[in-house]
């Protein structure tokens, strides 16, 4: 076990301690358990994504300093890159297809995961919804009303060809956007919110409503 010097019995925090021996005396050095750290790098291919480690968001390939022990990595179930949608495929070390991974770190580690491009079936397209707060993507549970699916942004929704109205609500803010889904097309929708700072107890959930738009409002 490693220990880090902390202080002398008189409070001196320097490892070099000077005293005058005026009488019998005892000098005591106090140590504390050294906080060890390890580095974790999460990588993803063929695209970079944002992952959370113990609830904190990081870009893939960014070294993260952690204490040894158990940690939880969550990769997004899906992600949008350009006009393509990618679905989480697996963790490369054990082949697990669960985007949530528990890891026991005892030394520096690199954990890699793989995404695969989503092929949109004929007659369908999809939208990827990204919500931002001060240019930072909001990682929050979302709910898509039609399917009652919950997860983290970005929300990927596959729709049949047609016209829709997308309404995204974050806190008290609501954004509305009409869209047209074309066969095989993936659309990325970015919504910028200004709810800063989120008040204590703020529900970070994102509500996504997708409704078929009236013909008169179709772009």
């Amino acid at each position, binding site marked *: *076990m490693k*220990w880090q*010097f902390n202080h002398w019995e008189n409070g001196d925090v320097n*490892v070099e301690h000077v005293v005058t021996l005026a*009488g019998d*005396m005892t000098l*005591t050095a106090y*140590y504390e358990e050294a906080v060890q750290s390890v580095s974790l790098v999460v990588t993803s291919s063929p695209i970079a994504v944002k992952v959370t480690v113990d609830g904190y968001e990081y870009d893939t390939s960014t070294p993260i300093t952690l204490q040894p022990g158990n940690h939880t990595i969550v990769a997004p179930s899906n992600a949008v890159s350009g006009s393509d949608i990618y679905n989480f495929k697996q963790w490369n070390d054990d082949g697990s297809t669960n985007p949530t991974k528990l890891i026991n770190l005892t030394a520096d580690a690199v954990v890699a995961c793989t995404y695969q491009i989503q092929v949109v079936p004929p007659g369908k397209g999809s939208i990827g919804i990204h919500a931002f707060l001060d240019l930072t993507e909001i990682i929050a549970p979302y709910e898509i009303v039609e399917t009652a699916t919950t997860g983290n942004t970005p929300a990927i929704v596959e729709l049949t060809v047609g016209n829709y109205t997308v309404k995204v609500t974050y806190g008290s803010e609501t954004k509305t956007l009409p869209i047209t889904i074309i066969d095989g097309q993936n659309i990325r929708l970015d919504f910028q919110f200004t709810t800063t700072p989120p008040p204590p107890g703020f529900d970070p959930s994102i509500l996504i409503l997708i409704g078929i738009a009236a013909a008169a409002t179709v772009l």
Partner: protein
Amino acid sequence: MKYRFTHWENGDITPQRTLTLSADAAVTATYAVMTKRLTFASTPIGVQAVVNGQTITAGQSIDLPEGTQVTIIVPGEVSV
């Protein structure tokens, strides 16, 4: 440096001595340096320190002249 009386040349350890001078005589009083005991301790136990250039382990003591300026150095990080 402080000194402490230890004995006369005849072995008498009493500082006060009475003698009858019947011839030339030399009397010698012997003094020793007064020392104090420095004990090193650590939490956790087992740490080594350097005291004025001398390495000691926690739990050990070292006798040094009273009034000595002591420089004690311990490692910043230890494995025990």
